[in-house]
């Protein structure tokens, strides 16, 4: 066979391509399978006078291109049942508005086991259980006017909180500093209405990190289990001495800690677009999505 014949044969082979559109570089592929589920956020504190639960249903990510950007309505028509450790059952659901459900419950006890069941006619009922964590009360607070700089180099003030971490167990804390302010609502009777301003809290402590709202700090005792620990919480002090500082030291469940951490990581990942590492949002609801978390706060006005 002559060389030219081999070349011809080779070109013939090459001409057989074209099973798919030659010039197209993208093709549609089948999306992953999806099952609609209830998704709820229920973050309770033992001292809450009212509790709110946000209920939504998971939606097909490919259902509509208009879905996205947040702020969509949640799911109404669900029934929320809170089963207390003492056997009492509270049910609420009729007052929901765009997925937000509000209930009125009496104070919770340390170590009380609480189960929340959320049902909806169109979805499988979801369930989660939490045990009210033991309240840890700090033993000392020390205000520091010049607490150094934060990670961005800004001058901060701070509060050093000393507490005894219970040994032999995993403990988690959510810590926030708020300024207490007031406004005179009734000058005749000198009645003031108090309100609380959140601060931008930060810490260089390796065991503490900011949560999803960039104010509260979340602390795990992995690095200091059972120790007397001093946590320095820093904040930008604008010097309004008329305000008093309130410290919320909240002993929280692991579920609440993990949920907050994963929400923050999800938010950070979004900042890097497609180059952000994917984040698994924590969920502890059986048969569904979302988180039921609990806290047992100690509040101290300095």
């Amino acid at each position, binding site marked *: 066979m002559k*060389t030219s014949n*081999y070349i011809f044969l080779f070109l013939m*082979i090459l001409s*057989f*391509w074209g*099973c*798919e559109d030659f*010039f*197209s*570089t993208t*093709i549609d592929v089948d999306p*992953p399978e999806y099952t*609609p589920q209830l*998704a709820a*956020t229920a*973050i*309770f*504190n033992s001292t809450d*006078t*009212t509790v*709110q639960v946000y209920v*939504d*249903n*998971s*939606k097909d*990510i*490919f259902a*509509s*291109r208009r879905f996205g*950007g*947040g702020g*969509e309505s949640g799911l109404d028509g669900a029934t929320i049942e809170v089963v207390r450790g003492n056997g009492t059952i509270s049910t609420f659901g009729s007052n929901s508005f765009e*997925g937000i459900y509000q209930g009125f419950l009496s104070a919770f006890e340390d170590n009380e086991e609480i189960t929340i069941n959320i049902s909806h006619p169109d979805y499988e009922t979801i369930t989660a259980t939490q045990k009210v964590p033991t309240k840890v009360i700090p033993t000392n607070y020390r205000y520091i006017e010049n607490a150094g700089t934060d990670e961005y180099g800004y001058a901060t003030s701070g509060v050093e909180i000393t507490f005894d971490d219970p040994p032999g167990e995993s403990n988690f804390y*959510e810590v926030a500093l*708020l300024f207490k302010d007031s406004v005179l609502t009734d000058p005749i009777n000198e009645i003031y209405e*108090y309100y*609380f301003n*959140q601060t931008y809290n930060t810490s260089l402590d390796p065991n503490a990190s900011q949560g*999803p*709202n960039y104010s*509260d700090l979340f602390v795990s005792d992995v690095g200091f289990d059972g120790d007397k620990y001093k946590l320095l919480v820093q904040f930008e002090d604008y010097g309004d001495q008329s305000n008093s500082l*309130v410290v*919320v030291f909240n002993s929280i469940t692991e579920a609440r800690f*993990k*949920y907050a951490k994963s*929400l923050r*990581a999800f938010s950070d990942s979004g900042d*890097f677009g497609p*180059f*952000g*590492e*994917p*984040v*698994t*949002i*924590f969920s502890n609801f059986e048969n569904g*999505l*979302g988180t039921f978390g609990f*806290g047992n*706060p100690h509040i101290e006005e300095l």
Partner: protein
Amino acid sequence: MKHYLLAMFIVLPMLLFGQQKFTISGYVEDSDSGEKLLGVNIYDANSGSGTVSNTYGFYSLTLPKDSIILSISYVGYDTRYYKAYLDKDISMNFKMGSDVALEEVVVVGEKFEKIEEETRMSTVGVPIETIKSIPALLGETDVLKVLQLLPGVQSGGEGQSGLYVRGGSPDQNLILLDGVPVYNASHLFGFFSVFNADAVKDVTLTKGGFPARYGGRLSSVIEINMKEGDKDDWHGTGSIGLIASKLTIEGPIVKDKTSLLLSGRRTYIDVLARPLIKAQSEGQSEAGYFFDDINAKINHKFSEKDRLFLSLYTGRDKFGLTERYDFNGNENKTGFGLQWGNLTGSMRWNHLWSNKLFSNATLTYSKYKFTTSALDEYSFDTYDSEFSLDYDAGIEDVGAKIDFDWVPNPNHFIRFGGSVVAHDFNPGLFNIFSSEKENDVEVFKIDTVLGQKEVYATELAVYVEDDMKIGERLKANVGIHVSGFNVRGKNYASFQPRIGLRYLLDSGLAIKASYSQMRQYIQLLTNEGIGLPTDLWLPSTDKVLPQDSWQAAIGVAKTVKKDYEVSFEAYYKEMSNLTAYKEGSSFFQLGPWEDRITQGSGTSYGGEFLVQKKKGRLTGWVGYTLSWSFRQFPGLNLGREFPFKYDRRHDISVVGTYKINERISVAGTWVYGTGNAVTLANSVYNGDYSPVELIQQGEIPVTAGQNFFGPNRLEFYNDRNDFRMRAYHRLDVGVTFTKQKKRYKRTWAFGAYNTYNRKNPFFIFVGSDPQTDKNVLKQASLFPVIPYFSWKFEF
């Protein structure tokens, strides 16, 4: 009694005399080029003892005083025979000539003794002729992409040269060029490897059953040896291809004493594209990209006992973009540049201490550097401003090592040695300069350096191993590798036992098993995909623990009908302290690198099947891998185990070359692989977490519960890496036409990559369908069918 004493005086010397042993030793080399040959069989038919030559072609065989009939065999070469009466130590060098009569095309594995004879498993040698014969993307022969065609080795993505060996990541491969680690083995963002095939002599991949002499990485050792240079005649090869041209010359500086090899390669994408870009932008923009490599080696023989090798490699990728605008007196110049590359060098001294003891002392230097720069200059009337940003990162090593080969008798081949490496890690430094001038008077200036401090570390290792023969059927390679690492005052140490066994059955079937522990003190901070030059090599520290692994493998091997080597291996590997980016972080993120990573464990297991045909017109191999690979990190995927991104259940490769006649040969490869695993959300929902809300209740503040101001859109996926992209498969074909001209030999090569134009996945993304107003999942492909040609000459 007298008789007994008399008998004793007569018999004892005879016994002693009969046990007297002598050694025959020397070098084996190619008769044409003088290149030393590794793995040549030297076998004495009378005693049934044998050995193989080492990396430098040295062999040593100790035998009883007797007549010997040595056969010196090496596939692709004529078998040589040597007869002598061994009554003293003999130094004998053998020159091997090409076995023209067999018309063999050298293929994988051939450089070693018969597969059932050797103790080592999970090791494949790939001769450079094989690599050159396989069709390649744009015709650019690629050493690492050929290794991807072997069982147990996977590519990362379409066109990438990164290697994923038995569930490991690319930074777990120790790539040695003439004994020097190469830290970034890719050009053009991973599409080509840095190794110029024309300068390479041989390539060996070890993916398990690591002998004790290897250390420092968990998953594989890839040894690439450069040619030494012809000691007798000057030769040259060169080629002109679609994107690059190459030229290699080699020859004697002092005949039979000193030889030189010099090889260069450069792409010309920039040369072709620059005029087009300039014309398109009406002269205002210039852009270009190229990569180049230079390999050089000098080999000098001082005496039969002393040889010196100097080798050097340098390669770089360079990208630049500049734009100039001049409008109504406003002059603006902006520029951006990227450059990265390796510089490696080694000086090796081979010394023959005796006919049983051989040593190789090496000084090594390796540097990888990545730099990027940005420039912005502006001037208008009396105002001038200038801003520049330079960033550089990398790693620099200086090392020394010594290796001894000691062959006390035919039943033992002992290797021992040690090494020390001083690492200098540069995690990234920014040089920032900014200035503004009015009437040439400086009104503002910043000139500062930001970034993370360099980290210095020292790595030490010693090893000893014995390749021993225990009876006729059992062989063992037993050794220990001990390593230490010092960084920032923190010390790590590791004892790594290694063992390999081979038992030969009557049927000629060899059963092999191995166990090895490995430790790795440095890791690559990288995204799991494209081999970006921004990837950073970083050390273990007090916060980041060294990576460890153990691997066990068992297998069988046999040569069938002389031409076919058949092997099957099953392996299980566990890895700990693996590193990965934390959830939510990114390689674009600033801040301390140690805060961005998390550590966890990995498991991989599977089976590898390989059939190779070595001789005849048709040569090639069929490989199949069935494997599983998982990761588990406390900080990822809620602590649940998840598939490794490159967990590939099925991987098939078929490689064949058919020599139609002396002038024409055709070659083809077909590969199939299960799609890569990716993390993909399948649904969305809203969720929220509000900060602490307080209300005043009487005299005290109390919590007010959550306030859902604007819930966030959250994405849900079942598990990390639980979605599979489409399967990958591809057929490459090529044909070469070779003709001997008067002064030179020329070869035309034609071929096509991805011949049937399979739309293989490169990445997937969520797009939109304008018809339905819905999101749709789309897959982007990179390479359609790509024809190539090249013209090659040899003189």
